[in-house]
């Protein structure tokens, strides 16, 4: 094939790409924390909130799931400062742009996250909660100590999907000029006028895969720990 390929360039690209790792980790962790919290609150509201709240939260999840990420990014980047300035006289125009990325991603992440949690919660047998209440645990304790660990077992694979997808959302940050590892790769390729793009992309893919393997490993550990005592769905 008439295709130049310089294997050494893969290695050469790695250090510069890795310089974007900090940004990737920042928005990843920020979003998991904030978006996860939002998602959790939404789940809680949908399961045990009053009717009006359930309706609102349902609508919220609905709309967020319909919103393309680029639209959300621009809504937050351009809309939020206007709203805050207009309504509360708070000026966030000078904020670090990474904050906007985290907010946009958190909103986007909260909806699927909440659905993951909701389905996992409903999958835990009712009697588990009842048994916990019957020995004097409060609702909160019953949830945290008995229901949640069991729900997590079935939530984890889906959360894993979401975390990994989220990690790759660097393209979104790039649209407002935040350069993560994906962005670094693109800058390199642009600077080379498209040259060595395959080599650069291979380096990128390798780095992402390694990160994914790390996330998967963590999830596997958590899953194994939480599914203690659970019989796998397997006939002899």
């Amino acid at each position, binding site marked *: 094939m008439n295709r130049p390929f310089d294997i050494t360039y893969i290695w050469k690209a790695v250090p510069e790409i890795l310089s974007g790792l900090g940004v990737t980790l920042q928005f990843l962790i920020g979003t998991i924390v904030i978006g996860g919290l939002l998602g959790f609150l939404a789940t809680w509201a949908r399961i045990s909130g009053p009717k009006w709240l359930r309706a609102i939260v349902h609508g919220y999840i609905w709309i967020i799931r319909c919103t*393309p990420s680029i639209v959300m990014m621009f809504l937050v980047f351009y809309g939020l400062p206007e709203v805050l300035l207009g309504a509360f006289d708070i000026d966030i125009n000078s904020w670090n742009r990474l904050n906007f990325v985290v907010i946009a991603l958190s909103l986007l992440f909260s909806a699927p996250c909440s659905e993951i949690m909701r389905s*996992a919660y409903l999958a835990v047998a009712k009697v588990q909660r009842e048994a916990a209440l019957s020995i004097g645990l409060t609702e909160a304790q019953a949830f945290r100590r008995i229901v949640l660990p069991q729900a997590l*077992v079935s939530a984890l*694979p889906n959360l894993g999907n979401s975390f990994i997808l989220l990690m790759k959302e660097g393209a979104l940050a790039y649209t407002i000029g935040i350069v993560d590892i994906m962005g670094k790769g693109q800058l390199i390729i642009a600077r080379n006028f498209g040259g060595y793009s395959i080599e650069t992309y291979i380096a990128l893919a390798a780095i992402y895969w390694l990160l*994914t393997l790390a996330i998967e490993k963590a999830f596997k550990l958590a899953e194994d720990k939480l599914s203690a005592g*659970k019989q796998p*769905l397997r006939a002899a």
Partner: protein
Amino acid sequence: MTIDLPYVQEILILVLKGIPTTLRLTFIPLLIALPFAFLIAVARQRNVKVLARISQIYVSFIRGTPLIVQILVMYSLFPSLLNVLVKNWGLEYDVFGINPIYYAYIVFTLNTIAILSEVFRSALETVDKRQLEAALSIGLLPVQAYSRIVIPQALVAATPNLCNSTVNLLKSTSLAFLMSVQDITAIAKTEAAFGYNYLESYLVIFIVYIVLCSLVQVFFQLLEQRLSLYKRGRNITVKSENDKQPEYFEDVRKERYHAGIEEYS
């Protein structure tokens, strides 16, 4: 900043033409992926030796590499390779004439398989082992036990996540524009470039996605309600007439009634 409404209307009409492409890009990969994803999930769940290992690597690799890289491989490298092979075999096939939408199908299918296999795996976790055992014990084959008992129960926990995945897929099909496939985003962006009407274009994209994603969500919501009926329990009515009973049940009920056998509720 003002929104140019007539222009919005104009693109909206143009963009509508992209809807079939977007839907095709979503549902063809989804439907192809469903069975494969399920098989992988079962293989991993049951820890089938080699298969489970291979599946795990597959899932990890596909999830772990950026979509744009996969598109590059599929859209640029793969046809080149195919071309060389076809030439070596002395065939007269124009590899480069293949509509790039097929490459898009492949990329999205591979990704959807990986994502859904985890959705199914987690859903299978929610089914009690005893349900499978009971099914086997009355003489169902494992395939039947899965399709009739395990899967319907697993689907209850899977539907919200299937909905997430479908909606995500629907939205990510816009990446097919990298392969020159003209979906709704592609059309809107092309139109926007000339007059730099990005605001209006994104507004249109938003509107169209709201409609499409809403349809998807309605579908899955109804599905979930139907599938989880057994958890909430059927509404108990003393007289069975209002009950939504299986139609065959209704037949037998009538027959027995007419045969003078006692009525049962």
